[in-house]
């Protein structure tokens, strides 16, 4: 079965690029959220296997979204996306349970490599 991915990014450009990369690689993109509120709603509604999460969002930071999703779905893999300059937040995100982070601008190979290794981390946190 195809792995299901939710994309969270406030830039339509970034979402389009990520969606194309992931779809071309055979993943199913189950939704695209443009802000934190949407991200939480769509994560709850679609129960994805993995979420790509932008660090900076219009309504709240990606960090808050990460924590919100973690409470609800402890097993979902989260890959943080950020342009350089936000390393502090990214470190905090990794400590809060994100699987990995991708630095924008990203290459297709890098994205796919990180997404696939995050998905292989094991089915649950206990594993």
């Amino acid at each position, binding site marked *: 079965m195809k792995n299901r991915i939710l994309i969270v990014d406030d830039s339509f450009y970034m979402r389009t*690029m990520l969606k*194309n990369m992931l779809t071309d690689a055979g993943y199913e993109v189950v939704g695209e959220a443009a802000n934190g509120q949407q991200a939480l709603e769509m994560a709850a509604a679609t129960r994805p296997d993995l979420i790509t999460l932008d660090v900076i969002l219009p309504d709240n930071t990606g960090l808050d979204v990460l924590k919100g999703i973690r409470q609800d779905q402890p097993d979902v893999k989260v890959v943080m996306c950020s342009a350089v300059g936000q390393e502090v937040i990214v470190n905090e995100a990794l400590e809060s349970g994100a699987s990995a982070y991708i630095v*924008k601008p990203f290459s297709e190979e890098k994205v796919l490599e990180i997404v696939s290794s995050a998905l292989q981390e094991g089915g649950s946190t206990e594993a």
Partner: protein
Amino acid sequence: MKSREQEYREIFMAEALEYYDAMSRHISELEKNPADAPALNELFRLMHNLKANARAMGYADIGEVAHRMETIFGLIRDKEKTFSGSMVPVLFTGVDKIGEMIRAVGESRELPSVATLVNNLDLLVKGEEPVLGEEEEVDADEDANRKLELSDLVYIQIKKLDHLLNLVGELIIDRDRILTLSQEIGSPALQTAATHLFRIADELQYSVMDARLVNVGSLFNKFPRVVRDVATAEQKDVELTISGEDIQIDRNILQIITDALLHLVRNAIGHGIETPEDRVKAGKPAQGKLALSAQTERDDVLIQVTDDGKGIDVESVRRKAVERGLVSAEAAGLLDPGAVRAFLFEPGFSMAKEVTEISGRGVGLDVVKLAIDSLGGQLRVESVLGQGTTFTLVLPTSIAVKGALLFELEESSYAIPLMHTDLVVALWPDDLHVVGGMLLAHVFGDNIPVVPLRALLHGSEDGPLPAANKEDITGRQNIIIVNYNNRRLGLIVDRFLRQQDIVIKPMSKPLDMIDLFGGVTLLGNGQVCLVLDVPALTRLFLAKRP
């Protein structure tokens, strides 16, 4: 890959311009209230996004400026710096420069130099005094006189244009009505006003139609990627050439033919073009050629998909058509290759697996045909066995208004779209012959079946048409020769009226069930006029011919 890059570029531009507008707004808010937290957060976020997007697009300078601006707005937000002093003009210049750079990208111009700005932003980050030059000089006069630049382009939802076009359609009908009334009433003043209204409405109609036109290239340019993907999957080597990208067509028509074109291109690669080995064996270059082209012909747009693959085997299609009972063996033998290839568009015909293998043509051409029919267009196919196939889509430029021929039958007016009208002739009984119960007209070296339209419209629901009798034909016969799917058919009508642009409206339910009419139009005299659906008429004739 070109298509996707172009798509990315368009999205980047649209979003970057949006960001720039928002940045300009927020930095002005900051000038009023230097600690405006929401404005600072937004500026930070917008710079961050612009930086990431610009770098992904390879616009390094935009990325450099946005990166430094992001850092500074971050520092102000975190209260490590304040928006004051020499920082203010530098940041304003930064936003201006970003706008300039984005516009330069949009116009494919060289980007302006940002060395001074970048240097100043670096100094600000380090907490040093920037070097203010001409760029940052606060010239109150100049600022006050600064011209506001608005884009010359507006983006508009197609829904709004659809609505506009519908309104124009209504207007045209009322206009014709008023013009006719003014002639009946005979008031010169009213006639002058009506004539003026006629001209204005005409111009309005063409302006609205024009606003809906897009370049065929916006669809064609998606195909390099499709061709690459399909060719890879099918293990074919295909070179795609595209021409006529700047031909313009109604956006909704382009939308409707998207799947059809995708289908034809997939078919051409999957079933038309041979594998490199087979091509070499057949004495062809290993790399197959596929061409997508557009051109205008009178008021129509022609879109062609041409491959140099193995072509269509007419004889196997002919055999299949007989086997499937679509035509008698005797009649099939007489059909010319064009008429035989037309069977490929019969519903379900091309679904047959054997045909796919034998003729080298894939599934679902009937679906393509239906899409083109729904637009009142024509689909043609030419093919030379062993050399290749060309599919031609003949499409109207606009969906709203169609050229039509008006005629009279039993004192009612009918219209028939010009797209399906080949010829209008008046023939005497001597020009008509009865062969096997069917009336044939010999026109331009072609034997065309002829049928009185009233027999088709009023005939009993089932059972064949009554056999033609030469003695029933007396006097001059007015015949409209229609063409659908390579089949010509002559329709005998009472009287030709005129040629006119009509606005076709869908019909209400009860009449709709008759299915022989594509819609109705209102004439200037207020009379309702039924618009004949030539594909449906042709099918009915084929089913009921004696």
